[in-house]
């Protein structure tokens, strides 16, 4: 019963909350969609925390994504022990980076008086979920070797079954690893709280900056398209309004 709750009900509930909540917040509460950086109040400690934390998570996120999308490729790569070791050690070090960064960030938030002024309750929730997530992940990687290989056998089928609305939880439920179960549960909890926390900022990572032109000029309306008596029903409505 607990397994059904944790591995079927929770994932669907969190994904639904995530989708509906994020879209609602983006459309109706656009002003609140921000990374609400506190670098302006404290910059030096932020560097040592934020850089390893974000780059660590960045690599881990894509690592998980690749393992989910292309499990065969990952297993093929792991065919040789050296390559397996390289992959596992790299992933583990980025995990440690993220953990170290996060600890420094927690410390900064607790010790800097100025940063405390812009700390909300949800920031504490974010810290707790992230700490759980990263520590449980590191424990799984350490105790249940080698995750990059068994991921394909246990987690990929489970995650895929979730997304095709035919949940198969036998594989994950059979794994006798508390840390892995915590890792899964906290992962879905993390997804669920995205719309209610500053996590929202990773959804608006400004990747479109890469192909945008540097200068932006916006006309309230296009004066060349001013409606005349002959074309009064056609009009140009600018995106800005």
């Amino acid at each position, binding site marked *: 019963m607990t397994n059904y709750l944790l591995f079927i009900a929770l994932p669907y509930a969190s994904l639904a909350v995530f989708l509906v909540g994020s879209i609602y917040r983006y459309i109706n509460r656009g002003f609140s969609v921000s990374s609400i950086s506190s*670098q*302006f109040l404290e910059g030096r400690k932020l560097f040592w925390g934020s850089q390893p934390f*974000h780059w660590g998570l960045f690599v881990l996120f894509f690592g998980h994504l690749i393992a989910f999308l292309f499990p065969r490729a990952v297993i093929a790569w792991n065919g040789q022990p050296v390559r397996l070791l390289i992959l596992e050690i790299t992933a583990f070090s980025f995990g440690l980076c993220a953990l170290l960064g996060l600890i420094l960030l927690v410390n900064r938030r607790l010790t800097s008086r100025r940063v405390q002024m812009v700390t909300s309750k949800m920031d504490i929730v974010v810290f707790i979920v992230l700490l759980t997530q990263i520590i449980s992940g590191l424990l799984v990687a350490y105790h249940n070797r080698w995750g990059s290989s068994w991921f394909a056998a246990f987690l990929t089928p489970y995650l895929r079954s979730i997304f095709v609305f035919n949940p198969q939880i036998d594989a994950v439920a059979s794994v006798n690893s508390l840390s892995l179960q915590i890792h899964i549960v906290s992962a879905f909890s993390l997804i669920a709280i995205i719309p209610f926390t500053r996590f929202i900022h990773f959804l*608006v990572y*400004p990747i*479109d*900056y890469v192909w945008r032109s*540097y200068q932006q000029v916006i006309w*309230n309306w296009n004066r060349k398209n001013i409606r005349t008596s002959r074309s*009064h029903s056609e009009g140009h409505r600018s995106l800005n309004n």
Partner: protein
Amino acid sequence: MDIRSQISMVFHLDKCIGCHTCSIACKNIWTDRKGAEYMWWNNVETKPGTGYPTKWEDQEIYKGGWEKDGDSVSLKGAGKLRGLKNIFHNPHMPVLDDYYEPWTYKYQDLFTAPEGDDQPTARPVSLVTGEQMDVQAGPNWDDDLGGSKDYARQDVNMKALSSAEQEAMFQLERMTFQYLPRICNHCLNPACVASCPSGALYKRGEDGIVLINQERCRAWRMCVTACPYKKSYYNWHTGKSEKCVLCYPRLESGQAPACFHSCVGRIRYLGVLLYDADKIEKAASAPDDQLVDAHLDIYLDPFDPEVIKQAKANGIADSTIEAAQKSPVYKFVKVWKLALPLHPEFRTLPNLFYVPALLPTMATVANGVYDTTSKSLWNGVESNRLPMKYLASLFSAGNTSKIVEVMKRLMAVRLHRRGLTVGDLNSAEISTAMNEVQMNGDTADAIFRLTALATFDERFVIPPAHREESIEMLENTADVKGNTGFGFKERPARGL
């Protein structure tokens, strides 16, 4: 030719009395809010001095603005690759202490303090943390300290001077200062817009005002770094950047921006300039010594029939073209060539121009006597109290001939008017000065008039925003024809 119109500005520094009324007007309207207390969209600095935020002009520290990159320009401290790389921590961003920690006083203590031997005092408390603090700096902490060691001598523009020239400048009898009021320049090549990863910053097509869309700002903070004038500020409370909006709600209703309106010395002028947007990249990437000329070359003659034709074809309203023809900025910048941009070497093509101040008489000290008599009136331009190299570092990217030319023109106007009103100069001296800058009496009189006697409407020529048409921005009025005004909530029907 891609003609656009730009609301642009001239500040006449000779008239600035450093009263900070502009700053207060702006503060009261726009930045008297939590998170914005430290922001001064309009501030007045003392030059020489370190300014606000401290040493903002030093792009070795803050990496603002553009730098020449082959035939074009690239952002110095931001840009696509750098911006996305530094998004988790922006290494060149000024922090609160580079501005100052805003504070208030515990005034209640004056009333509630128990009776005692001492006077009750109102201790300063931080507006960020609410705790008691020792005030270390403020927005104008270098105010009037033209000779000070910590401020004036730390002025970034001192790099343009040799140490001997600096020492000469700080001799007691030479010591001087002038004021430099600053607002957002609403640049033609804004570095803040280019640096914003989420595309929240934009330039308004109709009038060129640069704005931040608060709904799209995601606190990536790149604009704070990229603006070389440090006129984009981060609101630590809302997690959004904010900047001078040139009081666009006032402009749209035909009123001058608050800082302009309230200016006690009447130093501020506002008007339209027409410019050719196709020339922006070329002008921004001109070599240093040609920067000012290339920049001013972008602005077009609003009386030229070809310009008018192209402007109309580009959808610029007749009323805007008319405003451009009456623009005091056009006169100061293009016709009379009296105003220069601030730090053109940042290559953002700013639209705020400064008429430099002709400083007071240069005195000499001999045998312990302070002597203010001189051979010629005001002792000529080159022996100005502030060295020409210093002014060139501020207003002409180090091109001294440019600033000398402007000073000579200003001096010619003074000599001409002195000849008319006091009449104690010999006419040869006046005509030599006038001929040197090829100025005639009528021009000098016109400059005098607009400088000293101009009325409100001559100083601020604001083009109509055509609000009568603004409804059409939001909806197609033809669709709702007959639906507005008195209507029916229920369909009228006869009988039951």
